[in-house]
């Protein structure tokens, strides 16, 4: 995030323009190479600015994709950690599982913020966002799956009936040996 901000705030420090402007108007006799259009030259400064913007948009799109794919690495690492933790309930495995659950949820809550720096009218953020969300959902699913393997999800009948009090009895019967 900080990196992104820095880029956005100060813009570019320098740029090299390879178009040679000195020869432009005089050497008209030389025909332009095929496919070369002089029209762009006419746009001069505004064109430069536009190009600049384009490049930035490209860069933003590229970064947005990077951000969108970042959870994937996370996912792999989480998977490894979960495997390490084993299938029994204890402090370690519970900690890992809950962090695996919390991370995607936190990330999903902050989807807008994560992609804020790359907001651009020209950049289409929808797809990276969707990818980001999907990957995080994947992480969440992994966490839930882990929770289930730990037996912490109420998916069995036993989880619902274990605190059920005994049924009331209709009849009441007592007795025994005659008292001596």
């Amino acid at each position, binding site marked *: 995030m900080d990196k992104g901000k820095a880029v956005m705030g100060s813009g570019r420090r320098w740029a090299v323009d390879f178009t040679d402007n000195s020869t432009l108007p005089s050497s008209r006799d030389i025909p332009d190479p095929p496919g070369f259009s002089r029209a762009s030259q006419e746009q001069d400064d505004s064109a430069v600015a536009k190009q600049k913007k384009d490049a930035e948009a490209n860069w933003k799109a590229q970064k947005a994709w990077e951000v969108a794919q970042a959870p994937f690495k996370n996912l792999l690492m989480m998977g490894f950690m979960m495997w390490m933790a084993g299938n*029994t309930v204890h402090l370690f495995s519970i900690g890992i599982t809950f962090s695996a659950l919390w991370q995607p949820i936190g990330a999903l809550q902050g989807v807008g913020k994560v992609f804020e720096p790359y907001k651009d009218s020209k950049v289409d953020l929808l797809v990276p966002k969707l990818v980001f969300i999907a990957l995080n959902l994947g992480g969440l699913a992994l966490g839930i799956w882990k929770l289930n393997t730990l037996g912490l999800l109420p998916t*069995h009948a036993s989880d619902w*009936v*274990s605190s059920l009090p*005994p049924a009331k*009895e209709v009849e*009441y019967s*007592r007795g025994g040996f005659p*008292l001596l």
Partner: protein
Amino acid sequence: MAMAIRSLLIFLCIQSIAVPTFSLYEDQAGLMDWHQKYIGKVKHAVFQTQKTGRKRVLVSTEENVIASLDLRHGEIFWRHVLGTDDAIDGIDIAMGKYLITLSSEGSILRAWNLPDGQMWWESFLQGPSDSKSFLFVPTSSKADEDNTILVFGKGSLHAVSSIHGDIVWKVDFPDESFEVQEVIQHHDSNIIYVVGFVGSSQFDVYQINAKNGELLKHDSAAFDGGFSGEVSLVSKAKLVVLDAARSTLLTISFQKGEISFQKTYISDLVKGFSGMAMILPSKLTGLFAVKTITATTFISMSSEGQLEVVDKINHATVISDALSFSEDRQAFALVQHGDSDIHLNVKQNHDWSSDLLKERIKLNQQRGFVHRVFMNNYVRTDKSHGFRALIVMEDHSLLLLQQGEIVWSREDGLASVIGVTTSELPVEKEGVSVAKVEQNLFEWLKEHMLKVKGALMLASAEDLAAIKGMGLRSSEKSKMTRDHNGFRKLLIVLTKSGKLFALHTGDGRIVWSLLLNSLRQSEACENPTGINVYPWQVPHHHAMDENPSVLVVGRCKPSSDALGIFSFVDTYTGKELKSFGLDHSIAQVIQLPFTDSTEQHLHLLIDTSGQAHLYPRTPEAVAIFQLEFSNIYWYSVEADNGVIKGHGLKSNCDGEVANNYCFGSREVWSIVFPLETEKIITAITRKSNEVVHTQAKVVADQDVMYKYISKNLLFVATVSPKASGDIGSATPEESHLVVYVVDTVTGRILHRMNHHGSQGPVHAVFSENWIVYHHFSLRAHRYEMTVIEIYDQSRADNKDVWKIVLGKHNLTSPMSSYSRPGVTTKSQSYYFTQSVKAISVTSTAKGITSKHLLIGTIGDQVLAMDKRFFDPRRSLNPTQSEKEEGILPLTDSLPIIPQSYVTHALKVEGLRGIVTVPAKLESATLVFTHGVDLFFTRLAPSRTYDSLTEDFSYALLLITIVALLVAIFVTWVLSEKKDLSDKWR
């Protein structure tokens, strides 16, 4: 890495599921538990005061205890509890150093060393027939001489050497039914006179040579009127006996080789005599006492055999045996009752008019009449004779009287507890004085500072002792108010003597005691006995201003058809609220699960004719009862007929007019066991107040099993009649043990199992959906414990999560026995090395905490065993998931872990019962064990998971918090300063 972590974690897991035990540290003994030693009602007492050193009194009791008590303080020097069928017939001191006891109807003679109670020798006496037994230790002037002890038992007379217990000689009397009444041996004479009766009308005298047991002479005479048993030896040649009609005194003189009878009508001696008389058993010379309904008459006999009334006492009177306190001077003690005190008179045998001693002793009213008196003398510093008396009271307590005062007293009634219930203590009220608080605060601080010292290992040995002492006499645990955790309660204990005690669970002290008037002899009730004590009124809504009460149920005579007695006692004040006699007998007392608006529990009493009587007798109670009328059943187990019968109720009593509180019974079902093959020995059911938390049992792989939890189940054990005797009396082929689980509403047998080659006695406990019972396997020659678990098959289909989540299940619908739910049972047996006296199970407030079995072992200790040892799903190689569930691998015998004895180093002699009471704190259960001794402790079967331990140092916690706060403040100030200096730079 993963492997290492996993193995570590598995290890931790195993650690956490390892079977918890109740082990204590040495210094924790006595913190939560208390132990009280008793001996029971004293039958015989012999004083040992001649020698210098510790003066003691040796007693034998009705609880089959022999004990040596310190005469100064009444403490027990040593004590032995003989078996329940080894009743003591007589004790005496031989040679000044042995205590001789005769027990088991005259068949076992033992000598015990006086100073330490070690057994010196034991001999078994055999004879042709069962008879009265009799111990006679001749007094000899020379202590070192080999005294022979004369014992009459099993129909023959034995002379036993008192040095090594060998039988010197033995005389079998020609007539087998000869009953010895007295054995007389004169000083320095070799002839022993043995007098007794044959049948009811023949009197026999034998003369026997004391050296070799030779029968020298036999005289016999018959008397037409017959004899009635009690004999008083008035002089060395004269006996007084009553005739069969108990209206004529018969003086028998026998010494000169001839037997002569002399008849005296009691009505001639005692004016206005009518009815029956009784000779008081006493050994006085020239004097005897005759008790009639109205008075006790003392009659003296002159040397010519002339009878003369010396005194007549209208009060209840008890006399002691004669005591010769100097040469030729004999005295006896006479105890009479005054209004609120007792009069102790010591008189000389031949001189009725003067008293050697006359004392008046103030006595607590709660002790009743004097039952027995034993006398002893001592020489005062001025060489005069002083007397002390040991008296046994109606409530079985033992008192020593000396110089007009009670020197000490022992509440030995508590050795024979017949009923136990508990009561809450009063709620703590406002208004504690300031001074008390300040002092308490100071003490609290001091205490906690000491604890901190202990925790930081700075305490010296003195401090450690102080810390331990504080724990032991913590005022907190013996307070008279209710505590938050429910540890402080009153144990209401009914004893055989009809005395009710309230014991504080904190330290075991007697808060109040009450000798119930309704359980004392009276004209209406000749020989009343207590049956049990039940909670009657337990106020919850008005706990601040209403006192709880208990109901004591008794009956007039020990026979089952005697009329019942009710007595209500306030448990805070210990006062009898009211008492009345019932107009019916009591065969069963059924506590109904209903209370009326004043929170009195409804009770149904079944009489011997099968009628049910409802108490309390109020219209409201009847209205409540009528609502559930058709759903109330009762059953009776008739062991003699081999029948179990179930009964329903009818609206009207048979043959009774206009009594709204009486209901008839109709037989609903009966199970008849064939008498030739099966004999009922045990029938137990669940405790009616047991709380079960859940009906589901989660097993491995999240599967669920539904427990069949019903209070209407009865566990019955029968054995083949041949195997109903002692172990070893039957061969494995002819003995079998059959156990049944019966539904007592419908009479349906849910489970039946036959143990071939097993026999009783069977001790069993029934809790939740399981039964554990203890029996003997003749094939394996070992004791076995078997567990049965019952599961409900009709609910087993409730396995769909969604249905359960949405509430589409039948798990909470009321259960009726008539729906005949299908059940499955699981069972497993294990060997157990000990024989058992009682089995009980821990009970907690909500039933969440895991259960432990409390096994009263033959060694009079209580062993706690985790229920997980008794799990029919145990297998040799449990799977991983089963291990996670906590199933232990199957072993053929149950381990006895020495640390899990809840009685730790103590013994509850003569253990009879184990009572468990839930505390308010879910993890804790209170255990009260009674026998001759009493023992109380608090257990936490799953450890105290819901509270901090008692030795937790709050002060240390407080100090830590304060220290941390100070540290935070200091570092904050320091960092501020540093920041400031940085900014100035």
